[in-house]
């Protein structure tokens, strides 16, 4: 229960954050606590129970997460925010994309920074200046904007060839429309800041041309056409139906009837883009087959990394990880940890349901 609601009024918020946090912490097997001093502030802390991660599991997670934007490496950003912890969080997100970040607390100090380093390489790759709305100062903003434009015109060599963009971080889009239309702010991101928002912002900053990506809606057909899919199911009716459905969307389908056969086909290097794997099969079930396939992939990756194996024909794939999707009529079984533990990427219901198939497949083959 908040002592008074003026904070909510000034900064927004529904007042249920603490309840949500407590619930999350409870679910993580921990306890939440706080220390508070009226007129000074509060410090919140929590404990949680974690298990030791499996070796290599972090790699697996990052592989799924990593948007791989080599074009961002070496770029620089300036974060203007007077709340140091919040600024550090923004910095963290940017660094994940390979961007170098400097933090300063006011627009005024940002202007000093720019004039101090104006002829140095420090500002060569400055692509975006992020300003938190709390730190926005209308008067200084024009000065800042002009200084940024000058950075590029005074002969400094730069890979960008255009002035750094100003991106405003605010609570809602509505608020700063006037700033955007005045041409001072180039981009607006709502908080909490998300990776996807930062990516879009940088893509615009470097003049990313591929608009097609963003605007074209995609269908199962556009996702699956030409993709090599392996279907593994010991039941011939299920195999035929799965094959029919995938072929309808343009996929090139190979069917096998056992976990063992799946191993043979998915031993790297191979041509398959994804595998749909039945879970319950005699002799070797879907879990075991997946475990063994991941094993084969890890061994192969190790050999490539150590230089013992030349990538050769598999050069198109730097790191083998074939998406394996469980097919199951029993969703409860599939959402079980065992699916993820043995290395499966996701599951789809059996028989296929179009909407679910689409959203699952889109994760691995992108959206257009």
């Amino acid at each position, binding site marked *: 229960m908040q002592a008074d609601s003026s904070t909510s009024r000034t900064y927004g918020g529904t007042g249920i954050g603490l309840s949500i946090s407590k619930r999350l912490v409870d679910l993580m097997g921990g306890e939440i606590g706080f220390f508070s001093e009226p007129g000074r502030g509060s410090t919140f802390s929590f404990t949680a129970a974690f298990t030791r991660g499996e070796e290599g599991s972090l790699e697996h997670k990052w592989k799924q997460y990593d948007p791989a934007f080599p074009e961002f490496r070496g770029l620089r950003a300036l974060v203007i925010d007077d709340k140091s912890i919040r600024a550090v969080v923004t910095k963290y997100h940017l660094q994940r994309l390979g961007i170098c970040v400097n933090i300063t607390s006011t627009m005024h100090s940002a202007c000093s920074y720019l004039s101090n380093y104006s002829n140095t390489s420090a500002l060569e790759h400055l692509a975006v200046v992020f300003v938190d709305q709390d730190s926005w100062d209308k008067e200084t903003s024009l000065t800042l904007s002009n200084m940024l434009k000058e950075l590029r015109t005074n002969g400094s060599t730069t890979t960008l060839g255009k002035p750094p963009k100003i991106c405003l971080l605010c609570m809602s889009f509505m608020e700063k429309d006037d700033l955007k239309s005045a041409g001072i702010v180039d981009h607006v991101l709502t908080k909490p800041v998300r990776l996807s928002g930062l990516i879009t912002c940088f893509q615009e900053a470097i003049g990313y041309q591929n608009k097609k990506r963003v605007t074209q809606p995609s269908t199962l057909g556009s996702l699956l056409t030409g993709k090599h899919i392996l279907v593994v199911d010991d039941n011939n009716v299920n195999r035929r139906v799965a094959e029919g459905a995938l072929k309808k969307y343009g996929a090139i389908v190979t069917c096998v009837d056992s976990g063992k056969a799946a191993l043979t086909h998915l031993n790297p290097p191979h041509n398959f883009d994804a595998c749909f794997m039945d879970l319950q099969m005699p002799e070797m079930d879907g879990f075991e087959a997946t475990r063994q396939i991941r094993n084969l992939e890890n061994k192969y990756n190790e050999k490539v990394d150590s230089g013992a194996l030349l990538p050769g024909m598999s050069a198109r794939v730097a790191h083998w990880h074939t998406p394996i999707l469980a097919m199951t009529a029993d969703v409860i079984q599939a959402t079980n940890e065992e699916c993820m533990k043995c290395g499966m990427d996701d599951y789809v219901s059996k*028989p*296929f349901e179009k909407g679910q198939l689409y959203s699952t497949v889109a994760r691995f083959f992108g959206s257009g």
Partner: protein
Amino acid sequence: MEVGQLQRSFVEYMASLFREGFLDAQFSQLQQLQDDSNPDFVVEVVSLFFEDSERLLNDLTMALDQPNVDFKQVDAHVHQLKGSSSSVGAQRVKNCCVPFRNCCEEQNIETCLRCLQQIKQEYLLVKNKLQTLFELEQQIVAAGGAIPMVQ
């Protein structure tokens, strides 16, 4: 019978199969997968289903006839049957499988045998219905008509 009449009978028959629960939405899905590059898809899959089911029903009969019934084996067969009937949209057959699996878990021979009896009946019914449907299709084609798409 002239084409128009045949087509109407076909549409009505198909509608009744859905209404009475013999077939479900999955069967419609199969029909949608059929196209010029795959003109006999439905017949193909259904034929596979017939073969598969008859084999499984025989296996089930034998398994339940043993002096020491291996309920795990029985359950495995029922699981297969559930999967394939689900894939073709044979709803009533699929629905018999869940109680059957429960009986396997309880290791009750009596109830298992009754489930087997029921599932055999449902299977024969849907087989009959589908064969009638395919015959109607053939008659329409023979009379020079097109098979109506039923939503």
